[in-house]
């Protein structure tokens, strides 16, 4: 082979190489020239980006959504508080929910009370639903305060009042159920601090509601502020708010049978699904001239305000029978948030003495049950108020915090064997859950 021939072959190979690489490069150039964005488009038809709702035009939707979050949260809150207290007991065979009934949920911070949603009938959550409701209403309030009437329209002040009202109740329920809670990834605060935050929001609701002429919001805020003032020891302030609430006033959570989220959760977990039942201690509450303490029932009648009925629903635990409060007889039975009755009981508690008896007997008249004619010393009135609240506010989410603040005895006593293993504890409020402790950088 001559050198020329070899060179010629080398040149041809080089040309061949170039031409082949050119083919490859050309192919890539064509592909690179394509507009690929369209090829990668994806839709999210079941979700709304945050940027969409963060718009003054969506202010009403934002507030309505916050109310919806609260309406769902109060249902599961009410159920949990009833189970921890002596109102309800467990009737299922799923162990995850037993710590509520066993009153040791406070020692199981990784438990469901911290993580479960408001829609879980078997194991309703508390902390997450209330946190969501609190954030939704506070977020709406903050946004509305930053916008102008021009941005939102004339309804802005009323929307602010509503947002503040539901923020107030969210803080309130959080304080009644949790020993500690955090807000907006802040450091944990105790119950009194939560009530103080609630009082601030109720104050905003009263002011803005008044400006907007929304008397329902104002009345509900009075009830709420009276409650948290009472809990903080401001009886005078509580009384002054409570007496502003007109007779017959009631603000309810919206409920419905159209969707699990809107179920009256108390009815759902009892008569509908057979997961929880009215505790035997609360199945026939008697009311009469004194605080019933056992023994003779002469002069006492079954209190219709705490009436219960046996459901046809079979309990998941075959050893249990389902009883449910007759005030909640369907998925769309309203669930009270703030009522004239509560305002009057706050007023009675703040007033004390014979004045308290007068107020309570007026409530009894409305219920058609005998008057209280017992002693009016401070201890007796405290016992009367606690007992009256147990009946008049039955299964409305008050009993557990009342046990805590009135220091009522826990029955069965801590240390008693729980029927499904372990022993009764002394939980009345729930500790900051792990889900907050592990994921909030400001919790140490």
């Amino acid at each position, binding site marked *: 082979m001559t050198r020329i021939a070899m060179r010629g072959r080398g040149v041809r*190979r080089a040309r061949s*190489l170039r031409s*082949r*690489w050119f*083919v*490859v490069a050309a192919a890539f150039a064509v*592909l690179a020239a394509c507009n*690929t964005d369209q090829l*990668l488009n*994806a839709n*999210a*038809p*079941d*979700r709304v*980006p*945050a940027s969409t*709702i963060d718009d003054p035009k969506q202010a009403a*939707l934002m507030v*309505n*959504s916050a*109310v*919806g979050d609260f309406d769902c949260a109060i249902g599961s809150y009410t159920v949990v508080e009833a189970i921890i207290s002596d109102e309800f007991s467990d009737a299922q065979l799923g*162990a995850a929910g*037993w*710590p509520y009934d066993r009153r*040791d949920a406070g*020692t*199981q911070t990784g438990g469901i009370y*911290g993580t479960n949603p408001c829609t879980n009938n078997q194991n309703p959550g508390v*902390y*997450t639903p209330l*946190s*969501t409701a609190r*954030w*939704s209403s506070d*977020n709406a309030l903050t946004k509305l305060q930053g916008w102008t009437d021009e941005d939102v329209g004339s309804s802005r002040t009323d929307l602010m009042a509503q947002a503040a009202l539901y923020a107030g109740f969210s803080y309130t329920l959080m304080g009644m159920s949790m020993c500690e809670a*955090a807000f*907006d990834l802040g450091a944990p605060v105790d119950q009194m601090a939560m009530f103080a935050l609630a009082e601030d929001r109720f104050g905003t609701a009263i002011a803005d509601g008044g400006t907007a002429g929304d008397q329902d919001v104002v009345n509900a805020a009075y009830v709420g502020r009276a409650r948290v003032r009472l809990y903080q020891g401001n009886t005078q302030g509580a009384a002054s708010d409570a007496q502003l609430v007109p007779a017959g006033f009631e603000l309810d959570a*919206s409920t*419905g*049978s159209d*969707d*699990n*989220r*809107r179920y009256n959760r108390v009815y759902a977990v009892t*008569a509908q699904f*057979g997961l929880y039942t009215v505790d035997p201690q609360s199945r026939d509450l008697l009311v009469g001239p004194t605080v019933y303490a056992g023994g003779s029932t002469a002069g006492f009648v079954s209190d219709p305000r705490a009436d219960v009925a046996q459901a*046809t629903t*079979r309990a*998941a635990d*075959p050893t249990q029978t389902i009883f449910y409060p007759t005030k909640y007889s369907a998925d769309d039975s309203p669930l009270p948030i703030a009522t004239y009755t509560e305002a009057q009981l706050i007023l009675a508690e703040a007033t004390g003495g014979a004045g308290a008896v007068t107020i309570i007997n007026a409530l009894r008249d409305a219920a058609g049950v005998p008057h209280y004619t017992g002693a009016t010393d401070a201890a007796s009135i405290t016992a009367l108020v606690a007992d009256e609240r147990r009946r008049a506010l039955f299964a409305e989410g008050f009993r557990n915090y009342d046990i805590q603040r009135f220091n009522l005895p826990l029955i069965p006593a801590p240390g008693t064997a729980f029927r*499904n*293993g*372990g*022993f009764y*504890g002394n939980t009345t409020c729930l500790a900051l859950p792990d*889900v*907050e402790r592990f*994921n*909030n950088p400001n919790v140490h």
Partner: protein
Amino acid sequence: MQHRTSWFARPSLGTGPQRHGQAAMHSVAALVALITLLVVPVHSALAQSGEISGTIVSESSQRPIAGAQVVVEGQTGTGTVTDASGHFHLSGVTGAQVTLNARMLGFRPASQTVRVGATDIRFALADRPIELNQVVVTGTAGGQQQRALGNSVAKVNAAEVVANAPIPSVESLINGRAPGVTVMPGTGMIGAGANIRIRGVSTFSLSGDPLIYVDGVRVDNQTGTGMAVQAFGSGVVSRLNDFDPNDIESIEILKGPAAATLYGTEAARGVINIITKKGAAEGTQYSFTIRQGANWFMNPEGRVPTNYWRDPSGNIQSVNVVQTEDARGTPIFRTGQMQDWAANVSGGAGTLRYFVSAGKGTNDGAEPNNGRDQFNARTNLQITPNEKIDLQTSLGYVQSHTTLSCEGGCGGATWGAWFSTPANLPQNCAPDAPPQCSWVRGFQSSPPESDRAMQDWQDINRFTGSFTMRFKPFKWMTHRLSVGTDFTQTKNEELLPYLTNDTLRYFWGSYADGWKYQDRDEAVFNTYDYNGTVQFDVTPKVNSSTSFGVQYYTKYFSNITGEGDFFPAPGLETISSAATKPTTLDDYSNNNTLGFYAQEQFGWQNRLFLTAALRVDNNSAFGKDVKWVTYPKASLSWVLNEEPMFREHVPAFVNTFKLRAAYGESGQQPSTFTALRTFSPVPGPGGTPALTPASIGNPALGPERGKEIELGFDAGLFNDRAGLEFTLYDTHTHNAILLRGVAPSSGFGAQSQYVNAGEIMNRGIEALLKGQIFNGKDYGWDLGLNFSANQGRVIKLSGSDTTIVNGSIQQRVGYAPDSWFREKVVSARFDPNTGQAVDVMCDDGNGGSTPCYDASGKVIAPRVFLGRAVPALEGSLSSNVRFFKRFRLTTMVDFKAHYKKYNNDERVRCQVFRTCMENMEPEKYDPRVIAQMQSSGTLVDFVVDDAKYAKLREVTLSWDAPSQYVGRFGAKALTLSLAMRNLHTWTDYTGPDPEDFFVSGGSGNGSTFIDQSMLPQLTSYVLTAHLSF
């Protein structure tokens, strides 16, 4: 040639069943005489024209080999290839006696000296454990020869496996046959599928499912699709098992980023390539397979726990509901029947090759409401109009109906039986007890007939089709274009009819009027795949192969869900007829991937190969800040035994030796829109439209990136009688994605958040040893051993985190991902006065002890490492013994070890319902265990059990009928076999089956942790008759 074969085999012997019936009446002598009369003249005729004919089969399975080459030694140009039936015919052979050489890729060549004119030559080719010239699918246009590959590819010769033993599912094909590939079935429910994990746990929370391709088309790889019972831990229905093992030629598994780089994003968990059968050669072969069998729960009375109760008189009573129900004549479990048939025709004529198949089967489980009916059909065509163009279609269709029973957290008969109690026996009912007391018969909560009133099923229609065109315009250039779709229409239903039986109505309470739930899903996967390869010689010794390609994948999911509750009257079973309709939902989502790659490979003397590649991908799920992601790859392959120096340094028994090394990267992206902060629509006050916080989002979220180094060798030993593949890998997943809780105070606590949480390392070895212990004319013995060991470790976690908690499972730096961490009780004392364990001390994590509880009863001891949740060691031992010429006995034992499982059966029995003997007589047992059983579920280390096991998975005895018998009714081969599965388990695990797991108990990556009232793997036998014409 084909006509002659047919003429020889058929005319005089007749066909059909009547002929088969007569055959039994003939004496052997008469048969021999007849055959002699028929065959001798033919022999004479063939000898006169220099003809030789015969058959080539696989030694291990006796399956005919199509396309094998047969040449006459020393007579150039005298050769042929076998047809679809493995038959060959040579003509023009000179001489009276010649030597024939037979060879086929993947088999050891064989030679025979034969007489010219012989018509019954039979070659049984033995498998070649190491075949460097075999082409495997790697993502490039023409695949790659094994010799050029720098990484390992696990190959399951499905056709061989199925020929030896009836394999019920694709996952059973893979289980124990591919080192490093972990198949975790979870339940013995018929129709339920397994989770498959490759090379350990490489993510915290994303899916661990490998990608699946069928004939080049990416297909739906989901598990647990749709059925309502699956939400509660019941068995999952895996889309992988929709494919019929009878239709599969081979399965090739690319195990990690080093091998799967060209598959790009989503391929970090590996790729399973399913290659279906094609028509291989001239001629036509018809095959029919009929199977009959049964499935049952072996030894239920010994595996369903006996439970105890101390009656009011202080006597300890026991119940085993399996025994009590058997005695009552209402056994809990049944023997489920299975039967199926499959038929196919394959072959070719001129430019056409074809494989057409159909199959139908019914398989019933051990529970009356569990079973699966399936129909499959497939048509694969190949047309090669000229040497430049090759067109292939692969069209598969499956229709199935699967019913699953409740188990796990769903309840069902298993739940009621596992947690039975003597307190619920009729004789223990108080006189005034409610009726359910005598109705539950010792079961927990309700009797089986109550649970079985409810039906859960899934119907699917699935079409998987592809069209592939190979175009070779020049010798140096190859193009391949594949377009395909995988369309699955799924209907999931749950129905409780209106109950008329008063007892059942009682147990269903307010639901006794019934309900119906229906979910209709569509999943569409489309593949558009172009690849090109340019090859040329750079120098006489150096070859270049440049590959490039573009792939576009689309995924689309849609579903419509409806629910109707309370039927007004019996017989109504539609949502429309229900009184209330609480749920109507529809949704859809899509995700697309676009990617390009370029690869350059230089080969030196066809024995040293250097490869480098780069893949670039974009995906709908990437955030705006994450555009194109690149994945590089490099590999080296060196066929050392072809080096002149090799023989000087290496013992002669090593005849093939290839060294390989590879580095590669690939990814795994989160779901679409996980980076976005979103709200979900919900019904608000009064049913008005409202939104609620959904996902908090994570704008900084990026894809996981797997980086892998793989080193290994393939060795053929003792003249290819044995083969050893050994691989060492080191995989690091960077930016591993974790679904972690969100602090509820942020407002978005309802949903967890995907975060790039850290780095996971998986390091391990894989070994596959196959060998022929003995190979004689009538006897042979092949052994196979595969083994893998994995050492996983969390290398780092983001920020200041060193631990991420997910219940009892933690991700902790320095430990394997998904490890058990719980308080460990190290000492306790039993107080006979109180009957309680007291002074309970726990491991303090530093080698000492500390009180488990504080004064309030809160657990204060630290959680300590108890073990891995996924196996670190696994493998299998398989054997194939051929004896008396026509019998084969194949067995496989597989094993998993070095992992622990959360035995929730034991926890629920002993800690919740307190029906263990330890609860009756605590003074007789270890106080450490008693302390846990008496706790309120806070101490549980006693149920984190060692779950290692070895299982006798498959035993099959086959008999190949003599050809002279089957030829009498026109057939070419008949094989009868008896196969048994899951015959015995060796384990210390205290639950019913170490393979059980509660599907919902795993974290997002599908690792499997918790066992609770799951049905064990069923034992089965299958009788098979396989006939080919």
